[in-house]
């Protein structure tokens, strides 16, 4: 076992030694420098391992000078301190490597000394058990930091250092004063000793004031709002390596001290202090970052926010009124947050060092063609934003679920902040991942290693924490997710990846075979796996243009959806839901969308966090019937699902996300992923709302569904981009499904479930066909196509049938859903909704015609003369999806019977009240409909008419495409004759006011409003030292006044 004092002693000695050596042998100075860091890392690692392995049970107390603690100074090293030391030295090590590669500032010996002493100071802060000694180490850290910051060659470094120094001096003055007063009041400087004396809590006002004096000094170092202006300036102005060490290690050490101080000096008002300052810092940081264009400062805001979260967590952690179980959970969350944030921020700041220019725009395209950079950046951003599978996700979940119910506002605050975080991080991510590929610097070892640490920790973290929270995550699904990630290794060859994915999916179906039961999850599981498999076949053409992460992400989406439907608790559903969301985010981001993926990320995150909040409010995590107080959990949880379904006011992401995602992925997105929203809403309606209770909310949901259907249909009519049109259509159709689910009657549900499957068939078919067409034609802009029926007869036929099905025209399968839905609506008596639903489905004919006309009919454009039929795999999938449309059209019972089984497995629902007669077909109380007859009648009479026509018709000449009656003129080009642009312009004149982008403007208004507030808010950081100092004084006065109780 290593004595912790050795770490400090050796480091100090080698710092002095480097001071000597630099003048004589520079190389040896470097060697000593690195060796020292390695030694420190190893030594602290050994200590930490000692704690982990149980060899050391209690904190080590190292006496110095041979005197027991209250007399002499001692080091107090427990598990947390050891871990912190490991963290500090690993960040320092990574930073040092980066520094060496980048080139040390001159004179390098002095730089190394400062660097070494900065990490030493941070370690000392962590280790020491004596308040005055703490002050000394704080000063060591600070002075080293001043020096390093000031020495940076970056613009504004000096200024930042000066501000840092002034504010830091005030802060350390407060700490010093507090420490001395503390000595005077308690007669001791030793932390444990004082804590022992104050065991009963601080009662006297003077001691409270003294404690607050120390705490306010520490709060300055912890970058609490609004006294964090200096920190932001430092993050922006200083050398990224230094910043990484500061943000990644030093500040965390301060946090630990803060925690310890607050623990040793038990102040009754500490809880509210931590909550107020943590909360405000967190929110302010997250929101002020929105307007930030300088990336390093943006990271700074993010760091500040993370610290705020940590302080908030500290408040709960030290609140002895909480159950010890939840305090333990919060402790774990704090550990995870620190770990996560340190390495992620290190990685990000060091990455920032690799990018020329400091603005967000300068990052454009940095992820393209730089796989290492992309990996580091993605995993770091995912970590910080708390996105599964990274550790930050578990940190957030643990923290939230440990907070007792009466502080649910804190949960709301955490979730709102997390959402705000997603907004700006993914803005950066979007900028970085799109645009022209750009060379980023090659100094990627350290960021890569630190993000690798984050990634490597993932399985361990999952293993530990899913057990800790007792979330039974489906092991088979996890295994499949793991295998899916392995597909990445086949990245050198796209066909191999494709085949591997198919094999994996097949294996997945084999593994999950026992789950195909006639219940809700079995139903959706079948949809997910078979649907996903079918669509996977069609992804092959054009996948060469996609990054090699496409197939892994695709499979992860599919299997996480399987995880969602197989979840038995809400929390595991949430976990898989998040995995699904973010892997699909990656896929959407692979398209050429400008803002699509970003919007998707924001809305999905908003939904997911609302869901988390709702789950938090639930009395039991199990998915099952139980008493749920109030409507709020149901509303919150269903928000996530409504977002995924893109229901009306939450729909604005959908157009671009569908329209601009990778073509190979869109069918899955529309056909299956939006159905996860249906699944979720179904769960909410059955298990939380109750199918027969809460009629008002369900009526409201019904209106949402039908208005979505109406407005999205209308928007689709005026949309000129094939995929965006289909996107709107998809959203509208899902609106109908939502309507059925909201009805809560067996008939409505069978309509919904039927339509769910059927919508998959035709919409997936349409998107697959669209992918094939776009692959061949090279554009998705409708007016540039036309006449493709001459080149792609099969695709036309498939699309035609899909469209007939989509429009709900008998005799194809789509009608059944419509018929069931209207029957259910009339049965239920939702009159107005019925009317709007009818109207919406009439409007759907408009865009149905538009698709067929603009793509396939009309004149074949000259540039498309040499277009061929869609690739074989696409055609295969088209046929595969086509058959059910016809078969179900004739025999809807093939699907309705299983749906009945599903319905009877759900509490509160029974099989749909339909009985089947031989003549009348399906009969309900209201009406009847004979699908088979209609199919036979239609087909028969069509054939008869055709034969009759063929026999009797005049002599038919097939003419060329320009041979039209054109007032005697000879058309010169196909373009002149093609009616493509402004197909429904006249209709727009009539109803254009209905598609005024009100919702978009409202969202935009909200976004811009928050931006404006953030802009206003961050003006408090005037950049003026006087002001910063004044903030510090003012804040400390406020702290002293409010929290001490002195009048």
């Amino acid at each position, binding site marked *: 076992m290593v004595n912790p004092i050795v770490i400090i002693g050796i480091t100090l000695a080698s710092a002095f030694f480097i001071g000597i050596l630099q003048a004589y042998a520079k190389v040896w100075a470097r060697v000593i420098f690195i060796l020292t860091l390695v030694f420190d890392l190893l030594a602290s690692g050994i200590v930490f391992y000692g704690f982990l392995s149980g060899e050391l049970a209690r904190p080590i107390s190292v006496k110095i000078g041979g005197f027991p603690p209250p007399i002499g100074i001692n080091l107090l090293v427990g598990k947390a301190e050891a871990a912190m030391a490991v963290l500090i030295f690993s960040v320092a090590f990574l930073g040092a490597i980066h520094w060496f590669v980048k080139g040390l500032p001159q004179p390098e010996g002095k730089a190394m000394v400062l660097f070494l002493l900065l990490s030493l100071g941070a370690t000392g802060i962590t280790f020491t058990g004596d308040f005055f000694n703490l002050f000394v180490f704080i000063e060591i850290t600070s*002075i080293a930091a001043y020096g390093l910051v000031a020495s940076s060659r970056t613009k504004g470094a000096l200024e930042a250092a000066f501000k840092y120094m002034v504010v830091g001096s005030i802060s350390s003055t407060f700490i*010093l004063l507090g420490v001395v007063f503390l000595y005077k009041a308690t007669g001791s400087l030793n932390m444990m000793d004082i804590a022992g004396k104050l065991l009963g809590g601080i009662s006297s006002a003077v001691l409270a004031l003294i404690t607050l004096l120390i705490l306010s000094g520490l709060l300055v170092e912890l970058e609490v709002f609004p006294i964090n202006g200096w920190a932001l300036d430092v993050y922006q102005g200083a050398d990224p390596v230094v910043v990484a060490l500061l943000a990644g290690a030093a500040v965390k050490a301060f946090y630990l001290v803060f925690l310890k101080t607050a623990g040793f000096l038990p102040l009754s008002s500490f809880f509210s202090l931590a909550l107020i300052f943590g909360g405000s810092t967190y929110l302010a940081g997250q929101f002020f970052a929105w307007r930030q264009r300088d990336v390093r400062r943006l990271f700074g805001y993010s760091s500040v926010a993370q610290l705020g979260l940590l302080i908030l967590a500290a408040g709960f952690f030290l609140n002895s009124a909480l159950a010890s179980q939840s305090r333990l959970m919060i402790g774990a969350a704090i550990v995870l947050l620190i770990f996560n944030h340190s390495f992620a921020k290190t990685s990000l700041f060091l990455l920032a060092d690799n990018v020329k220019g400091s603005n967000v725009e300068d990052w454009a395209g940095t992820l393209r063609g730089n796989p290492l950079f992309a990996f580091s950046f993605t995993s770091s951003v995912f970590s910080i934003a708390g996105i599964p599978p990274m550790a930050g996700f578990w940190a957030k979940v643990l923290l939230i679920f440990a907070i007792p119910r009466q502080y649910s506002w804190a949960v709301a605050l955490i979730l709102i902040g997390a959402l705000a975080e997603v907004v700006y991080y993914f803005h950066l991510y979007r900028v970085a991942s799109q645009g022209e590929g750009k060379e980023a610097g090659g100094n990627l070892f350290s960021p890569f290693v630190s993000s690798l640490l984050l990634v490597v920790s993932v399985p361990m973290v999952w293993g530990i924490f899913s057990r800790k929270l007792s979330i039974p995550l489906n092991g088979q699904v996890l295994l499949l997710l793991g295998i899916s990630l392995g597909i990445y290794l086949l990245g050198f060859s796209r066909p191999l990846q494709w085949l591997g994915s198919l094999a994996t999916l097949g294996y997945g179906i084999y593994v999950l075979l026992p789950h195909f039961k006639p219940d809700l999850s079995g139903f959706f599981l079948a949809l997910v796996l078979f649907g996903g498999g079918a669509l996977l076949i069609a992804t092959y053409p054009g996948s060469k243009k996609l990054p090699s992460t496409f197939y892994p992400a695709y499979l992860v989406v599919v299997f996480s959806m399987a995880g969602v439907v197989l979840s038995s608790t809400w929390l595991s559903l949430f976990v898989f839901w998040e995995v699904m969301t973010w892997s699909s985010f990656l896929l959407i981001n692979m398209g050429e969308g400008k803002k699509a993926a970003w919007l998707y990320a924001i809305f999905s995150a908003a939904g997911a966090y609302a869901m988390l909040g709702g789950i938090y409010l639930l009395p039991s995590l199990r998915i099952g019937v139980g008493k749920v107080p109030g409507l709020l959990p149901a509303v919150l949880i269903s928000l996530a699902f409504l977002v995924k379904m893109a229901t009306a006011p939450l729909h604005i992401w959908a157009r671009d996300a569908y329209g601009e995602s990778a073509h190979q992925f869109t069918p899955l997105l529309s056909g299956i992923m939006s159905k996860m929203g249906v699944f979720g809403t179904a769960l909410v309606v059955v298990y939380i709302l109750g199918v027969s209770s809460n009629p008002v909310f369900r009526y409201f949901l019904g209106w949402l569904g039908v208005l979505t259907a109406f407005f999205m249909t209308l928007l689709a009519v005026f949309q000129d981009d094939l995929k965006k049109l289909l996107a709107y259509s998809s959203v509208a159709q899902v609106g109908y499904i939502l309507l059925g689910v909201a009805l809560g009657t067996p008939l409505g549900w069978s309509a919904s479930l039927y339509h769910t499957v059927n919508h998959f068939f035709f919409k997936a078919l349409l998107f697959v066909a669209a992918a094939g067409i776009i692959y061949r034609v090279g554009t998705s802009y409708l007016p540039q196509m036309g006449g493709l029926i001459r080149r792609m007869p099969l695709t036309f036929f498939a699309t035609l049938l899909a469209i007939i099905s989509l429009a709900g025209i008998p005799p194809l399968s789509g009608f059944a859903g419509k018929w069931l839905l209207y029957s259910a609506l009339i049965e239920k008596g939702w009159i107005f909704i019925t009317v709007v639903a009818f109207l919406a489905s009439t409007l759907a004919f408009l865009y149905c015609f538009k698709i067929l006309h603009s793509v396939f009919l009309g004149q074949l454009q000259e540039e498309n003369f040499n277009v061929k039929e869609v690739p074989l795999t696409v055609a295969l999938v088209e046929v595969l999806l086509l058959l059910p449309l016809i078969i179900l059209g004739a025999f809807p019972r093939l699907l309705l019977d299983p749906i009945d089984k599903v319905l009877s497995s759900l509490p509160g629902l029974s099989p749909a009240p339909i009985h089947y007669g031989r003549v009348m077909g399906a009969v309900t109380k209201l009406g009847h409909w004979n699908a088979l007859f209609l199919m036979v009648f239609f087909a028969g009479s069509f054939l008869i008419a055709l034969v009759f026509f063929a026999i009797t018709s005049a002599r038919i000449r097939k003419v060329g495409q320009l041979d039209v009656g054109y007032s005697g003129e000879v058309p010169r080009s196909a373009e002149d004759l093609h009616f493509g642009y402004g197909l429904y312009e006249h209709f727009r004149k009539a109803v254009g006011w209905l598609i005024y982008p009100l919702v978009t403007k409202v969202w935009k208004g909200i976004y811009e409003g928050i931006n404006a507030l953030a802009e206003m808010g961050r003006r408090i950081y005037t950049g*003026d030292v006087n002001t910063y100092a004044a903030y510090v004084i003012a804040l400390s006065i406020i702290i002293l006044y409010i929290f001490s109780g002195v009048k």
Partner: protein
Amino acid sequence: MAFFVASILLILIGLYAVLVKRNIMKIVIGLSLMDTGVNVLIISLGFIRGRTAPIVNVKDLLVNTSSKVVDPLPQALVLTAIVIGVAVTAVALSIVMLMYSKKNTLEIDEYKELKW
């Protein structure tokens, strides 16, 4: 008592300079003043009326020392605090020198590039 008042006043005067003065040098001076104030305060906290310095160089002091000398610990602390103050001032001055050499001015308004 007067020591307390004086030292607190010293701290406040230093802080006043930091809060109000627009000249970097004066701010640094303010910080120094503040340090001094704190040091005085520490020393005066350790003072016990009518006692001698904690240096036991006379036999007389060897017995029952604690009733004859002032508290030595604050003095030890102040030693450290002074040195730290010096160190901070040194670094501060070097930063000021660098700042001055870059912009040829000590006005704080010129050093507000980083903000918001």
